[in-house]
């Protein structure tokens, strides 16, 4: 056998002479760009599900804000109309509209969504349905449409989210099954969300100060984004009415700015607030997400169709995952879901350039950020739910709009984004999106320290 090896060596020397005295020609060396998963994987294929449009309404404070006198279907209709108008799509080509919505009564809300579709100019041939996975419903709707497109049910679909917490505040109707006494986890599903926030901050040691700082940062970033006009790309102005609570006078208004943002929020202001859910707790109104009204819509289709129609591609849907966690600390949902979604997309956490992690409460947001070791410069760069608001069912869809538009602004270096939220009753959901249009391969080469050509070599 040695003979064979030696003969091979001799022959190899003819083809690749190692010693060269004067002139050095080309020599092989390990690829310095390394095998970062994002670099070479995920090519673009015609059957990718892509997002060609994503819009949202402004998010307004429930009961007191700009949409307090707006019907839920009047929130949805403008965004549905926008995704069609801005892309010049024939609405009859839409295969389905899936709307995530949480608090409205099941059948009524579904009917309202159907009616909204008619307001938006959709023909009767376009079906509508709703989906409810609590806070992730908007994201779940987008994922459902992507899955249906992949399954071949239709080629073009709209995933949307809608919530009017003015019309439907969080409430429990009817009695509670006494059986929950015997099932702690079931009982914990009934915990007020604020209590789960206190559970998280207690168990994982997130201090009041950290939470308030996160809230201040959220407001600061959201205010900066609004001031610089970043949200103009994604917000659809809604023409609606406001009824003066004292005089009953109706006024016609156009709502196009998130009205929950406090540009001048400071740490000291927040420190003054009293804990709401537990006597000596840490969760206050300031470091919790706001109760809001709003809607968002995302137009998805196959890449081949988008190219055929000449539509610029805003983003590519890569993966979605929903996981279950302990209902008592439901806020840890993103920490559980994000790694799974990233892995499902064939990536690593390092490959993700931008995150939208819903700030249901500062406690869980800070915990998840620290647990995953994420760079805070990459998360909620334009503010989060504490400043902008959290209209439960709409949040997922609104995050898609915010994320994709921000990735578009950041340029080709910002290739992958993740949206994630915790879900009441103990779940987490996460989805990975890729920036639209083609990837600049040269700029996405990442330098690595070790020259292993493959991750498996580690």
């Amino acid at each position, binding site marked *: 056998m040695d*003979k*064979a090896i030696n*003969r091979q060596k*001799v*022959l190899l*020397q*003819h*083809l690749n*002479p190692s010693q060269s005295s004067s*002139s050095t020609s080309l020599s092989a060396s390990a690829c310095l760009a390394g095998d970062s998963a994002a670099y070479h994987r995920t090519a673009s294929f015609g059957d990718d599900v892509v997002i060609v449009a994503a819009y949202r309404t402004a998010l307004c404070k429930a009961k007191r804000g700009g949409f307090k006198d707006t019907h839920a279907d009047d929130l949805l209709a403008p965004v549905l109309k926008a995704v069609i108008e801005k892309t010049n799509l024939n609405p009859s080509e839409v295969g389905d509209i899936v709307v995530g919505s949480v608090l409205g009564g099941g059948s009524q809300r579904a009917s309202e969504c159907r009616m909204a579709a008619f307001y938006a100019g959709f023909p009767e041939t376009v079906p509508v349905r709703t989906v409810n996975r609590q806070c992730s419903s908007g994201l779940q709707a987008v994922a459902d449409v992507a899955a249906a497109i992949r399954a071949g049910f239709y080629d073009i679909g709209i995933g949307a989210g809608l919530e009017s917490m003015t019309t439907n505040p969080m409430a429990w109707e009817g009695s509670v099954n006494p059986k929950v006494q015997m099932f702690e986890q079931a009982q914990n599903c009934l915990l007020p969300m604020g209590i789960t926030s206190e559970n998280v901050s207690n168990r994982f040691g997130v201090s009041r100060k950290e939470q308030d700082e996160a809230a201040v940062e959220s407001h600061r970033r959201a205010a900066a984004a609004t001031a610089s006009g970043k949200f103009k790309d994604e917000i659809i102005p809604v023409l609606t009415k406001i009824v003066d609570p004292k005089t009953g006078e109706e006024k016609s208004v156009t709502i196009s700015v998130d009205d929950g943002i406090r540009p001048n929020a400071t740490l000291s202001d927040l420190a003054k607030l009293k804990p709401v859910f537990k006597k000596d707790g840490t969760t206050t109104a300031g470091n919790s997400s706001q109760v809001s009204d709003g809607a968002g819509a995302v137009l998805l289709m196959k890449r081949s169709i988008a190219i055929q129609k000449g539509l610029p591609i805003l983003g590519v849907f890569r993966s979605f995952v929903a996981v279950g966690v302990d209902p008592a600390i439901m806020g840890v949902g993103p920490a559980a879901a994000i790694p799974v979604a990233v892995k499902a997309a064939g990536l690593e956490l390092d490959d993700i350039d931008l995150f939208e992690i819903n700030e249901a409460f500062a406690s869980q947001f800070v915990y998840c950020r620290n647990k995953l070791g994420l760079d805070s410069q990459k998360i909620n760069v334009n503010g989060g739910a504490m400043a902008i608001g959290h209209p439960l069912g709409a949040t997922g869809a609104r995050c898609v709009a915010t994320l994709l538009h921000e990735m578009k602004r950041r340029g080709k270096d910002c290739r992958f984004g993740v949206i994630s939220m915790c879900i009441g009753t103990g779940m987490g959901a996460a989805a990975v999106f890729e920036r639209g249009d083609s990837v600049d391969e040269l700029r996405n080469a990442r330098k690595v320290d070790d020259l292993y050509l493959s991750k498996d070599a580690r």
Partner: protein
Amino acid sequence: MPVFKTPFNGYSVKFSPFYENRIAVATAQNFGILGNGRLHVLELSSNPTLPISEIAAYDTADGIYDVTWSESHDSIVVAAVADGSVKLYDLALPPTANPIRSFHEHTREVHSADYNPVRRDSFLSASWDDTVKLWTLDRPTSVRTFKEHAYCVYSSVWNPRHADVFASASGDCTLRIWDVREPGSTMILPAHDHEILSCDWNKYDDCIIATASVDKSIKVWDVRNFRVPISVLNGHGYAVRKVKFSPHVRNLMVSCSYDMTVCVWDFMVEDALVSRYDQHTEFAVGVDMSVLVEGLIASTGWDELVYVWQHGTDPRAS
């Protein structure tokens, strides 16, 4: 022009000096790395449309790297075998009597064999054990061993004019000229910066020698002035495996290379490449020009094919 498919990968091809339509082909299994070998003696038919036929085939336990015809007997071939032995075969004898001789002195692969065309009584074997050995047909052991090279000797070639002079090309990047009457080498040419895989003497000028190297070039030297080559022939894409001067035209030479092509050069001309033949689909490792038929070229390669064609024609045309 005909093509012959050998079962093993081709390593060397030589025209018989006696019969114009007879060639010997040295082949080795698995590219010569591991396995058996076979020596084919083929007959070209006078009608070019008819295929090449096989007169004889001899199997060996290890690959055969080179073959040479005896200049004294029309039916004897010498095979350089990879297991270090040099075997003699006689076509006139039945297969059971073959090989008639097996000389096993080299300690490593024998890479080349060459028969003395002037004296016709002796032949050389060049081996990867850094030595060249001189043999005669009648003696059971080598007449002389020339041990000076520092690495594998790839080729040793007799001078066509001077009976006792030969050149050896080695992986130590030198070409050595020897005279069998002298104790050591008479000249050392540091011809290339990389291994020299083949050399050949010019048939019309006894001082001109060509070397083919891993650096993809062929250099033509005048041994009287060996500091600077007469010409450097570039054009091959990979190491040049074999070079042979034409027996009919003074300036013409043929070479084959790992870049799968066979090239014909005129080294006295500025634009030296005369033709390039790319019929092989694997390394082209063996090439020869017939002494008896002007312009007839044979080549073989690792693609297990032997081509015989007239220079200027398409080797693949039938």
